[in-house]
């Protein structure tokens, strides 16, 4: 019985990177065109002013903030999950970490665009950056938006580092191989640069593993802080159904929930598209499916606690928002959210047969829709009903806002397809290391430790 470390098995991971794969290229091209919709719509908005969006008074925040929270939430897929699995030394993590960390980095890049889009005049964004200038002005650190900038910048830089560090030995593996096969090609040049002179000396391994361990520990509190602070954009305001102490943990749980959901969908597609069932095997889906189930229950619990508190309190301004959400005009959205986020997951995930790739991917897709709806209900649902109810309003997104949402999904696909052609989506050296540990542990323990043992 050969482990996945045997060279032949790695081929399936190396080929998309070492050779030109038309399918992946077409994938980049198509998603790139969808991404162009984002930049066209954004450009149109910059030229014609922010008024081309559907936001108004009193709904001053619309799709852009919904998308911002949604994408920052997605970013909790990777780095956080992979860091938790690394810190707890879960052996089955090895094939998952890379594809999860890439989701984080790309989702953060997209999420970070939305505040710029939202301003309408992106060139004044730098006023928020603490640069000492002769203007003698300093940003206001009492504003949750400033906390956002600090947290998200830290998280983005940390996630990029955390994604790049474990990629160095893989780039070196590819460099050595490509130098033998086609020393003059452009790809070879890329890997030579990207490997950063990695030679695999004990000193280098020691430094790398120390750095990865440190980053894994550091990134967990950063990730938790990021979505807590995003929730505080709402909770710090005194608006009905925003001003809630539960929002911090509620948003963190929701973020990880949507993160696991996108990871499930991505893993299913990778497995089908690249034929890497051997690495992203049923055991991985089963374990992540259990985590998924835990977060479905947590999210359902928080949602229940939040809504029960508001309903029981029966405060005039809050109950207006509550009624519209649960029984009024937004009820169809609210109950769709409950079905896809709680009912369907609880019908599928508790059962081992449900925690197979297809089942978890279907649940994942539903949860992505549901979590987007949740953010929409929070942002628009509250803003429609100001405390002085003379000014109650409505909100219809314009084509610009819809175009930017669609384009952002295209952008995620574009970044991911392109990444697939630049780096192996499963960490080669970490899987090798796992196989090595399993072999050393002896036949008795091998089955338990082996990262990618197919259930034969």
């Amino acid at each position, binding site marked *: 019985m050969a482990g996945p470390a045997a060279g032949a098995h790695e081929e399936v991971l190396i080929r998309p990177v070492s050779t030109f794969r038309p399918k992946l290229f077409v994938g980049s091209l198509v998603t790139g065109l969808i991404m162009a919709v984002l930049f066209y719509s954004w450009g149109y908005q910059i030229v014609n002013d922010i*008024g081309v969006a559907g936001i108004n008074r009193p709904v001053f925040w619309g799709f852009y903030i919904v998308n911002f929270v949604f994408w920052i939430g997605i970013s909790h897929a990777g780095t956080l999950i992979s860091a938790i699995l690394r810190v707890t030394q879960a052996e089955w993590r090895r094939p998952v970490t890379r594809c999860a960390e890439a989701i984080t980095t790309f989702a953060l890049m997209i999420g970070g665009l939305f505040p710029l889009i939202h*301003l309408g*005049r992106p060139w004044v964004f730098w006023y928020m950056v603490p640069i000492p200038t002769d203007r003698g002005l300093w940003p206001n650190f009492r504003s*949750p938006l400033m906390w956002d900038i600090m947290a998200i910048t830290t998280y983005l830089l940390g996630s990029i580092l955390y994604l790049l560090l474990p990629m160095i030995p893989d780039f070196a593996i590819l460099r050595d191989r490509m130098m033998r096969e086609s020393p003059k090609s452009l790809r070879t040049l890329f890997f030579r640069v990207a490997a950063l002179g990695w030679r695999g000396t004990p000193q280098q391994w020691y430094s790398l593993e120390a750095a990865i361990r440190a980053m894994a520990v550091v990134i967990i509190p950063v990730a938790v802080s990021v979505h807590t602070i995003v929730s505080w954009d709402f909770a710090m305001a005194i*608006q009905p159904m925003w001003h809630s102490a539960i929002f911090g943990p509620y948003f963190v749980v929701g973020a990880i929930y949507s993160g696991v959901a996108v990871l499930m969908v991505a893993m299913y597609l990778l497995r089908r598209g690249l034929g890497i069932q051997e690495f992203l095997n049923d055991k991985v889906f089963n374990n992540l499916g259990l985590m998924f189930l835990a977060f479905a229950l947590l999210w359902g619990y928080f949602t229940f606690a939040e809504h029960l508190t508001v309903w029981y309190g029966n405060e005039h301004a809050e109950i207006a928002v509550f009624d519209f959400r649960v029984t009024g005009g937004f009820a169809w959205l609210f109950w769709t959210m409950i079905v896809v986020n709680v009912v369907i997951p609880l019908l599928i995930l508790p059962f081992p047969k449900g925690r197979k790739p297809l089942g978890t991917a279907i649940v994942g897709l539903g949860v992505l829709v549901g979590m987007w709806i949740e953010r929409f209900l929070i942002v628009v649902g509250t803003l429609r009903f*100001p405390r002085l109810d003379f000014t109650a309003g409505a909100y219809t997104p314009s084509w610009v806002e819809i175009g930017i949402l669609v384009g952002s999904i295209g952008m995620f696909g574009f970044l991911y397809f392109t990444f697939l052609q630049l780096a192996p989506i499963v960490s080669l050296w970490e899987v090798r290391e796992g196989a090595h540990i399993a072999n050393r542990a002896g036949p008795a323990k091998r089955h338990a430790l082996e990262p990618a043992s197919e259930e034969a």
Partner: protein
Amino acid sequence: MTRWGMVFDTDRCTGCGACSVACHAENNIQTVGEVEAAKGRAMHWLRIERHYEGVFPDVKVRFMPVLCQQCANAPCEPVCPVYATYRTPEGLNAMVYSRCIGTRYCANNCPYTVRFFNWFAPEFSAPLERQLNPDVSVRPAGVMEKCTFCVQRIQDAQDIAQDEERDVRDGEIRTACSQSCPAQAIVFGDLDNPDSRVAQLARTERATHLLEELSTEPSVTYLRGVR
């Protein structure tokens, strides 16, 4: 110290809207047109809200002029990431237009919904462009704005008083809304001067504040009680 404040006598208010029109003229507020107004983008720094009391046929309409309450404990101020809105030593909740980057967070956190955003660059159709007030800047697209208590008039009166080496007299400053109110329902002045008319009215039994329970400590007082 000076603390500017305003009193609205809702028992006097007839709901005519002259204050709102005067405010538009004085402060170069853009008129957005029907289409934009239908989207909820009309801009009236001072607006008259109507509410109805009683059951048909015994119904009474009451008017509530709503404008920036110039809160001492303003929810809009701490949330602005760039200090575009802040409290002046004279108790005004000021807007620095050139500093505003358009996060619109202040407007979300205002319980009175009295902040207005320039969704498009302002256009003044002829002949309105000839009556722009030279003492007030025209706000570009992407900037938040709201009632300033006619800060340009306050400044003007203070300059004159300084030249004449005296204090600003009570009643010397009249905001555009107060000046144009046919029912004399609006009084402006210094709340810290116990003898000023505004301070005396704000102390009466009829005095009340809007959304007092939020402890925003508004500088605007409403008088009501005669039924």
